[in-house]
């Protein structure tokens, strides 16, 4: 079963636009929500992360908005640039059955293209 649903699959914006990528989850035990950025031929890299005790977090041009009641979170990229063109993954962390170790579950990814 897919525990983290990400949309859209792909997104094209013009330079300076504000792409928004959304993720939804069902498991209320998730308590850590990161976003990863991946360039072609590279491994994913942590971009920004949030915990459910805050509704928004900003780091530079990247913002996570978190809605605990709706079980949704989203990534906004302000003043997007062609260099932001990449695949973005949302994720959520949940403990194993013993509660002692956590694993990260990823969404399916969004391919973002920022045109000049």
């Amino acid at each position, binding site marked *: 079963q897919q525990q983290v649903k990400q949309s859209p699959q792909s997104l094209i914006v013009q330079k300076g636009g504000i792409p928004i990528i959304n993720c939804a989850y069902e498991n209320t035990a998730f308590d850590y929500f990161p976003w990863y950025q991946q360039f072609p031929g590279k*491994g*994913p890299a942590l971009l920004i992360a949030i915990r459910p005790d805050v509704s928004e977090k900003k780091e530079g041009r990247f913002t996570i908005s978190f809605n605990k009641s709706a079980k949704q979170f989203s990534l906004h990229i302000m003043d997007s640039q062609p260099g932001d063109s990449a695949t973005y993954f949302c994720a959520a962390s949940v403990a*194993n059955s013993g509660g002692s170790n956590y*694993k990260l579950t990823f969404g399916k990814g969004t391919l973002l293209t920022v045109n000049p």
Partner: protein
Amino acid sequence: DAGITQSPRHKVTETGTPVTLRCHQTENHRYMYWYRQDPGHGLRLIHYSYGVKDTDKGEVSDGYSVSRSKTEDFLLTLESATSSQTSVYFCAISERSRGEKLFFGSGTQLSVL
């Protein structure tokens, strides 16, 4: 890439053969993970390790086994490779337990013919 080396970077093998992928880290991080990445599926966890000789299954563990005999090395073995295991495999490490701040290697492209 945060002191993570995956080997080999590329491998082509035949159906039914065993394959072992290696992840080596120089960061002394406790937690190590193996993911596979496929179009339309994103990143899916195969197995992970929370210490030497301590491992657990992920969501797509069938057909895979892992071993971790020392902190720096995490091996992924395909016992008898199948075409459905053609994928890009990523190793990741973390010093924190809650799936936080994963650092990924550059990946291994595996083709099973």
